[in-house]
């Protein structure tokens, strides 16, 4: 069970009672304003308790919240979207949705990783875990973007690449490696947004972009907290501890100089106000694409090389605990 969903239950009940009282007060023409005000004070207090200080583990569960907006919802809010399918070799992976789009009037190529909103959709999209054919579709679209001069925009939300037998048979490693390579050689601006979970190489395959944005309560990690706990403590139930050790929050990523911009979420998380969240994300993407679009191909490629080149031992060695934990 998602602990954030658990904690929200009290809030949702309060919300319902406030609405009931408001309805009653209107329909029966009685003054319940003091009771309503008291409940609203209580509501704000609980809300602050829940969301004022979120542990890394709570952040993980915000990122995985079943009601959190998925990639498809961001794509649906673009001015225009024409989906392109398939890897031309084997299959069309439904965990990847990509195609031509327009954002604030600008032609772009948009790609998202689709996590399911319910069990049925999760079975269809393999819980957002992309298979080699999905990555090969992505690689194809990256190439198309460069050919047509369209900026690349990606929405990242995956636990990680699919770890199945078929995926290994079809060379999952090579599929991811070739997506990374396609981003390295691309001649157009690229912007990625981590909107939920950024799980390992499976996420980076869409994320090695000129700019990386992150929604406030998204996470980005070398391994899922459960897998990390299993490897390090031989105990998957220690995932909350592993989540803290992994430094996977948007603040951590910003401090490491990996993420360029964190997009703030409404109080209570993206799912509490989807409209505002999606609007903010698209606005942030738009201004980053606009900035990058003024650069020459050479400037883009130099900038990209430097961005990743400097994330190394020499630059992180001197980092101290307070800097990392502030």
């Amino acid at each position: 069970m998602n602990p954030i969903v658990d904690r929200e239950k009290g809030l949702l009940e309060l919300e319902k009672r406030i609405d009931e009282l408001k309805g009653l007060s209107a329909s029966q023409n009685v003054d319940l304003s003091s009771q309503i005000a008291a409940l609203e004070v209580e509501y704000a207090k609980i809300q602050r308790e829940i969301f004022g200080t979120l542990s890394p583990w709570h952040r993980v569960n915000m990122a995985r919240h079943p009601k959190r907006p998925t990639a498809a919802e961001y794509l649906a809010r673009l001015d225009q979207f024409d989906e392109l399918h398939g890897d031309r070799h084997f299959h069309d992976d439904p965990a990847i949705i990509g195609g031509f789009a327009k954002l604030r009037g600008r032609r772009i190529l948009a790609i998202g990783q689709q996590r399911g909103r319910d069990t049925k959709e999760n079975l269809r999209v393999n819980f957002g875990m992309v298979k080699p054919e999905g990555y090969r579709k992505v690689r194809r679209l990256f190439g198309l973007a460069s050919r047509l001069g369209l900026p690349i925009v990606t929405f990242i939300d995956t636990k990680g690449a699919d770890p199945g037998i078929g995926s290994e048979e079809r060379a999952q490693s090579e599929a991811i490696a070739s997506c990374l390579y396609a981003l390295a050689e691309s001649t157009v601006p690229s912007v990625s947004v981590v909107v939920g979970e950024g799980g390992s190489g499976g996420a980076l395959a869409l994320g090695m972009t000129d700019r990386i944005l992150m929604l406030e309560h998204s996470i980005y990690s070398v391994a899922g907290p459960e897998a990390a706990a299993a490897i390090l403590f031989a105990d998957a139930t220690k995932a909350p501890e592993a989540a803290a050790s992994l430094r996977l929050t948007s603040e951590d990523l910003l401090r490491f100089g990996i993420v360029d911009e964190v997009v703030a979420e409404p109080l209570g998380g993206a799912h509490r106000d989807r409209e505002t969240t999606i609007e903010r994300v698209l606005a942030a993407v738009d201004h980053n694409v606009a900035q990058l679009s003024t650069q020459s191909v050479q400037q883009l490629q130099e900038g990209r090389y430097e961005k990743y080149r400097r994330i190394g031992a020499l630059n992180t060695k001197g980092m101290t605990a307070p800097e990392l934990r502030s």
Partner: protein
Amino acid sequence: MPMPDWLRVRKTQTQTAPGWTKCPSCGELVYRPDLKANHEICPKCDHYFRMHAADRLAMLLDGDFTEVGGEIEPGDPLQWVDKRPYPEKLASDREKSGLSEAVVAGFGAIGGFSVGIGVMDFHFRGGTMGTVVGDRVALLFERARERRQAVIIFSASGGARMEEGVLALMQLAKTTNAVERFRRDGLSYISVLTDPTTGGVSASFAFQADVVVAEAHAAIGFAGRRVIEQTIRQKLPENFQRAEFLLEHGAIDMVVERPKLRDTLVRLLDYGIAAPSFSRNGSR
């Protein structure tokens, strides 16, 4: 340039450490000098021992080796602690392996061809890639690009290094960019996958080469065997994710037995990988 000191140390250690080693595959005791003479392959059951970087270099190089990036050493950016603090693990691996990190990079000649060469060593943190491995691999490609020489990398890795978190993940990006810039200039790269090559290393530079060679029997894949078994809740066949399995599925160019590896590389370099023809006269 002479071999660096650590290579001498390592060579002396193996040379002056006679005695017996137990084969992890057949369980038989193997006389160390016999093992060394047999390319670190068990004479009894044909099991390939995982090679130390120094032994691998000694097996391949004509002579001298000039290391690059050896001075780049790891920090502890995440202040990582699990059962032990990360710096303690690094110190004990340094002690045990005689290495400063999980990859040795530099320049030397193989069969008369001057090349950049990187050798990963599973004996240091399971060959995992953190910021130092990323830096050294990128530096190797950058220097080889300046020298207009081919690169050969021997991979042996459990993937990205957990203890460096997302900074380790970003090394996939750094190394990819370095490979791409190098190849864009018309230079070539041979990747040799050895046991094991998995995770972040197989999903980046190990599979971005012009020719991908695998050493016989090597385990190669993205997800670890245990992860897959837990996911599908059944045992995987023995040959799953082995070099021969990958060859059959079209993922690699060739599988080569260790004693023939050096000669194979020399033949490949001779086809133009060592010095692409168009780069010599400046155009295609």
